[in-house]
């Protein structure tokens, strides 16, 4: 009987947390079921200039030479291989060195930011920084280096 009461108490606490958590964040839950937050956890209302793109869209932009590809991985990872023509902005290193403030990019151009793939966070963080800098068209290629290389698309292995 005591065990039953104890389990009921645990269930009550979990249920209360569930109801309050989902209730207060109901607008976020709605957005989730409308397709938001499937790749990264940024509100696309708040970061209106940021868009997540697929491998096909990234390839199209690459072939049209219509966008600047930015690799947000570390210098070492970039040197081991990157998308052909991409420039390296190693987010974590620049963040530590406070060098992100020194980067200037024209607001009108399209940039495609990528990192290691869906397990990487630096592309999203760098996109947020660019949004704050006023860039108008920021695309995050969430499949990243892993997906690009896996498809055998053009890469550079120059050190």
């Amino acid at each position: 009987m005591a065990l039953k009461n104890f389990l009921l108490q645990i269930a009550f606490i979990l249920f209360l947390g569930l109801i309050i958590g989902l209730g207060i964040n109901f607008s976020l839950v709605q957005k989730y079921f409308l397709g938001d937050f499937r790749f990264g956890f940024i509100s696309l209302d708040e970061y209106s200039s940021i868009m997540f793109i697929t491998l096909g869209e990234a390839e199209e932009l690459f072939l049209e030479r219509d966008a600047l590809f930015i690799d947000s991985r570390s210098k070492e990872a970039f040197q081991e291989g990157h998308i052909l023509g991409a420039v390296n902005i190693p987010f974590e290193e620049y963040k530590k060195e406070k060098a992100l403030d020194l980067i200037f990019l024209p607001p009108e151009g399209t940039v495609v930011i990528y990192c290691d793939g869906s397990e990487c966070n630096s592309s999203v963080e760098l996109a947020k920084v660019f949004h704050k800098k006023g860039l108008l068209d920021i695309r995050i290629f969430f499949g990243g280096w892993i997906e690009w290389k896996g498809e055998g698309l053009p890469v550079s292995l120059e050190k």
Partner: protein
Amino acid sequence: MERRRASCIFGKMIRNKYILIAFRLVVGGVFIWAGVSKIIDPLEFAQNIANYRVFPAGISFFVALVLPWIEVICGVFLILGIFRYASALLLSGFLAVFLVLITATIIRGIDIDCGCFGSLSTKVDYKLILEDSILLFFSLNIYFSHKSVRVKSK
């Protein structure tokens, strides 16, 4: 038998009710603070969970919406003395999971923020293991204080 043995081990340390009250205040206070700091920005917390590279995005998202509220509820209950043993057991479970995640993250060599206190989070490191272990010790003490009273009265 195992429970009884465990409760005896903890029982030696937790009979003093003032120490137990102090434990409840510390653990409850830390979890209220931790919960509130994550409730402020659930998306940041969701990203912090995703950074551990263990859970898929959907699970990270829903855990980030619900977990901080459970932490706050348990913290408040612990301080007020409502369902204190259930709260202590739940928080002990959370702390045990956090410890496993932190240890695995260090072993895998992933350099991330722990996400424990929202934007005030520190990096995942050995200091964090120590802090969580101390909190786990406190919360298990609170939980086993209940058991030891029962065993003693038998």
